[in-house]
């Protein structure tokens, strides 16, 4: 559906050349909801603009539905753009036109008769749930409503692709959830292919089936959403995921809580993460029944990503040292990733931290 082959974008400024996008290749299939995540300045905005050529690449190919759109003349490119909708962080509605007129703008020269255009706009407004705001001006709408108008406008010419440029970044969490829900419905109802860029892993987690992580103009990881959440390879990816699942926050709380962070001789503080259908409880029960290792859960989180549960637990394991080791091995055979966060150290030397956090003596 969408194919980027080794595209690069370089901006020349006075003396230096800035490489906003470096040798990126992407394949997005029909019906995908593809997320591109990265911090600001990573080149995400430039990358998404390559798809409808608002930004032309300095090298590489952009192929949309089998057609290399870089070779098109201006007129055919405009026709091609009509088949791709785009929504923006700041909505970009025309302030001097009503909701109706804003959507009409996209339809005016589409060769559809006037009455049909009116019908179309009515049905689009129904689709995004704004039928009563037809004659309102953008200034009279809330952020979420403005984005709905923008979505209706983007869908006016029945596109097969919707590009979302930080579409929820200016919205509050509740509105964000509503807009994401609307996007998911559109994806299912219209078989719309959605490409979105964001700096919030939360958005990707709720919506996308595939994700690419971007850093300094390069795609550093590109996976299905489940595998990226369960087996992130790059540090930046891990960062994003830990923020999205609130594990970092939980750990910080634990470090600051002396009774929790203070371990006795036979205790281990560990993080367990697992993917798939096995639930944590039978495993923990097994730890006790087989190895007499008890588990004290401090924090737990389960994400259901594309119908696959991805879980993580922070727990204190207590039991005899030998048995603990066996228990950890057992967990590994069950495809649970174990990260040792902290273990009890002999006095005098203080507590040794294996990962992050502050030392509370």
């Amino acid at each position, binding site marked *: 559906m969408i194919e980027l082959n080794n595209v690069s974008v370089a901006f020349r400024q006075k003396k230096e050349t800035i490489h906003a996008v470096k040798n990126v290749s992407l394949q997005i299939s029909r019906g995908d909801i593809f997320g591109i995540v990265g911090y600001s300045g990573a080149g995400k905005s430039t990358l998404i603009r390559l798809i*409808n050529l*608002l930004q032309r690449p300095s090298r590489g190919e952009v192929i949309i539905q089998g057609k290399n759109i870089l070779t098109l003349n201006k007129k055919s*490119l*405009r*026709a*091609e*753009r*009509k088949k*791709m909708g*785009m929504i*923006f962080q*700041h909505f*970009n*509605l*025309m*302030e*001097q*036109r*009503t909701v109706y007129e804003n959507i009409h*703008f*996209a339809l*005016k*020269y589409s060769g559809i008769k006037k009455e049909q255009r009116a019908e179309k706009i009515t049905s689009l407004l129904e689709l995004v749930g704004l039928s009563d705001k037809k004659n309102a*001006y*953008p*200034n009279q709408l809330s952020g979420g409503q403005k984005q709905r108008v*923008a979505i209706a*406008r983007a869908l006016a*010419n029945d596109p097969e692709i919707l*590009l979302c440029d930080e579409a929820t970044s200016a919205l509050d969490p509740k509105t964000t959830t509503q807009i994401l829900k609307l996007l998911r419905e559109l994806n299912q109802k219209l078989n719309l292919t959605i490409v979105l860029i964001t700096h919030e892993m939360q958005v990707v987690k709720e919506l996308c089936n595939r994700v690419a992580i971007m850093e300094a103009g390069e795609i550093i990881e590109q996976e299905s959403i489940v595998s990226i959440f369960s087996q992130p390879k790059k540090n930046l990816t891990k960062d994003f995921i830990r923020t999205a699942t609130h594990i970092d926050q939980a750990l910080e709380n634990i470090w600051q809580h002396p009774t929790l962070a203070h371990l006795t001789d036979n205790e281990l503080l560990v993080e367990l993460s697992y993917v798939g259908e096995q639930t944590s409880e039978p495993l923990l029960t097994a730890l006790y029944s087989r190895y007499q290792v008890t588990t004290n859960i401090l924090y737990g989180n389960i994400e259901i990503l594309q119908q696959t549960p991805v879980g993580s637990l922070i727990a204190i394991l207590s039991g005899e040292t030998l048995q603990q080791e066996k228990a950890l091995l057992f967990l590994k055979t069950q495809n649970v990733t174990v990260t040792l966060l902290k273990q009890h150290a002999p006095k005098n030397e203080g507590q040794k931290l294996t990962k992050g956090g502050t030392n509370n003596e």
Partner: protein
Amino acid sequence: MNDFLLHYFPNAIQIPDEIWQSTVETLYMTFWTALIAGLFGILIGIILVTTGKNGILKNLCFYAILDKLINICRSIPFIIMLSLLTSLTRFLVGTSIGTTAALVPLIIGVVPFYARQIENALLEVDPGVIEAAEAMGTSPLGIIFRVYLIEGLPSILRVSAVTIINLIGLTAMAGAVGGGGLGNLAITRGYNRFQTDVTVVTVIIILLFVFISQFISNFAIRKTTH
């Protein structure tokens, strides 16, 4: 009432026809200059904004030439422009005296000013909206007529009011070199013959014009801003 006028405006009351005629001349110059310079100004303003940095038809070389040209024209004091352009005026109109002749320097004086004002007004249009229009496959002409001129309308009205008020001032200056109008009246009667009351009358009439155009533009801006 009559006594009041006789006492305070002894000279002005003698020449109602002349005052009326000057007023009509001023209106005549203002109207035609506004119309012709308005069209050229908007056209050049659009060219500036579309060929400039971040423009939809970016052409920095062309922009730089036009930009410098406008700066040069705007640097020439209008009173000097009037005498500078006499031969051009004579070539175009056949004479360099009279209200129609005054139109030539007036238009040339106003166009660069108005074009720059229009450029600034259109630069206020949210670049995001322009980008959205481009993403919808709108042609450059479509972006100019359906985005810039619609979204920028309140700003365009605002700068137009400023320009018209400026223009009324310039028409008075044109009076100094035989252009006719209220400026001419104020100089020939009020200044040269020490009939200060005539000057006061011209000032009152000009102020009236300024207030009326300000009022109309404010009303129009309110009506078109959403």
